[in-house]
């Protein structure tokens, strides 16, 4: 039994074979798909205009061709498991962008500062809302700026700070 089966939390170790290589991460926005179990699902592969996401079968986890992925974030909005994020390490010298799906109220607004939460919902720093996309199906796609070293740690926002 893997530890995540008891905790519900993936570690970077669990994800290591699936993440984009370091060089690709440094080039700019790219999808991070945190979906490793065999479950019947395929909207991510359908929505990708660049053919970057492949599902070998309905139940195999998605595979990403990181050379084709542009980090557009369409997959973030459609993933039923809310398991896809976009990370952009090229944003600024000190900051990276993380794009997350969000389905709670109130809907964040550009410029607001929230607690940045990790995969366990623990506050690990601050997140500044950089952009908000409200989809027709009521999912909100929020892009936040966090300290660069938190780009692979932060996966949610919590309390509003200002």
């Amino acid at each position, binding site marked *: 039994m893997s530890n995540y089966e008891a905790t519900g939390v993936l570690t970077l170790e669990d994800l290591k074979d699936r993440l984009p290589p370091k060089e690709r991460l440094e080039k700019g926005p790219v999808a991070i798909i945190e979906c490793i*179990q065999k479950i*019947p*699902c395929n909207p991510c592969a359908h929505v990708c205009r660049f053919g970057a996401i492949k599902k070998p*079968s309905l139940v195999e986890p998605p595979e990403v061709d990181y050379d084709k992925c542009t980090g557009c974030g369409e997959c973030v909005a459609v993933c039923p498991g*809310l398991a896809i994020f976009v990370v952009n390490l090229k944003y600024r010298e000190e900051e990276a962008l993380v794009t997350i799906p969000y389905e709670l109220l109130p809907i964040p607004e550009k410029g607001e500062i929230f607690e940045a939460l990790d995969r366990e919902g623990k506050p690990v720093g601050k997140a500044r809302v950089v952009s908000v996309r409200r989809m027709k*199906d009521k999912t909100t796609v929020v892009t936040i700026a966090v300290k660069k070293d938190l780009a692979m740690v932060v996966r949610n926002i919590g309390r509003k700070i200002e």
Partner: protein
Amino acid sequence: MDLRIWEHPILEFKRDKQVHIYLEDKKIDAYEGETIAAALYASGIKIYSKSVKYHRPRGFFCGIGKCSSCLMRVNGIPHVRTCVTLVKDGMRIEYEKGRGDPPITTEIEVEEEKLDTDLVVVGGGPAGLSAAIAAANLGVDVYLVDENPRAGGQLIKQTHKFFGSKDNYAGVRGVEIAKILLRELKKSSVKWVLNASVIGYYENKRPVLAIAQENRKLIEVTTRNVIVATGAQENMLPFPNNDLPGVYGAGGVQTLMNVYGVKPGNDALIVGAGNVGLIVGYQLVQAGVNVKMVVEAMPKIGGYLVHASKLRRLGVPILTRHTISAAKGKDYVEGAVIVELDENWQPVEGTEQEIDVDLICLAVGLTPSSELLFQAGCEKAYIPELGGPVAIHNEDLETTIDGMYLAGDVSGIEEASTAMMEGRIAGANVAIEFGKERSRAEKLREESFEHLNALRKSPFSERVLKGKERVWKMWRELK
């Protein structure tokens, strides 16, 4: 007190017309379209009845007309299931005394109706709707019965986007899938009746179903085929005070908060980390409830990791090898005691923890609602992998009674996407039997099988598939 949710990230609650009902002499605000139980709950009333012998308070439990916890006297009629009965202006609700008084007959006018059809579909959830629509579109006369005030089954309370294949609603929220199916139903030739329960199956050369609608109308339908898609009911868990109002099934909680927009509590404990427990936990957070934790007796989380991760990112702990050992409170839940379990499922001494919650949500599995199939005389078996007592059936969803089919959770607990495929297969099979649009029916049957098999290739389906194979084998041996 108004526990109604007025703002929700996903759902909109239509509350057009305010009406008033009376509980004993107390005037209570309600909205058209609400059930009696939901309206009472919204005004802070959590006790619906008292147990006959020990007078223990009884509250809402299942919310879908299956558990009898919410029976009250309504306009002089005893034992009304308030969770599936809609409010009407001026309605008089009373607590039952003891076993309840007989009805005041002068207030009840009973109508009768006789019908003849090709196929009766019992249950309007994902399986039943899919079966009815498929059969009707293949030239079968279909009559659909559902005991709830709204069709759609459990789909109408699912705020999450469905997994599955993009060709079959994946990425669409359950509530939206319900709307799509209901639009298809309206476009089709299916005739349907809501607020109506099948009260018996009998035969008079052909199968006959007796249906009671809102305690006022008796409908007798003579038919050729029946597809039973009655779904399932929530399992109970034994622990002290498990009968207190505030201990609810996951489906009941979903009904209250996502169909009627009523906040079921402030602080919640969820028991069970299968997909249902994880999903309802996330939905509770969306409804503004503080979910304190999820406890799971198994050493690992049973549901999909992505559902668990969603909840963990919100800061909700999931404690495996933990269970509830007692509920606390006098008239309703005021707390819960949880305890760690050892490798032999025994409580570890000294690990009891009391937590302040007013809502305990049980998501500890479901049992197929097989009553009608058994009353009709279908051969049955107890298959733990399928959730317990099921009617023996084959891959085509045919029971041991000729012309009687089943589909969805009643054929074994699975989920809505597989239920929809089973419904289509059963519906197509009835159309094939009739010989109408035979080639189209065969094509639909084949496509649905293909899709169902693709869905079941996940390791999460291994157990249910094992149960299915056992039951199919039993059918072959009997036939």
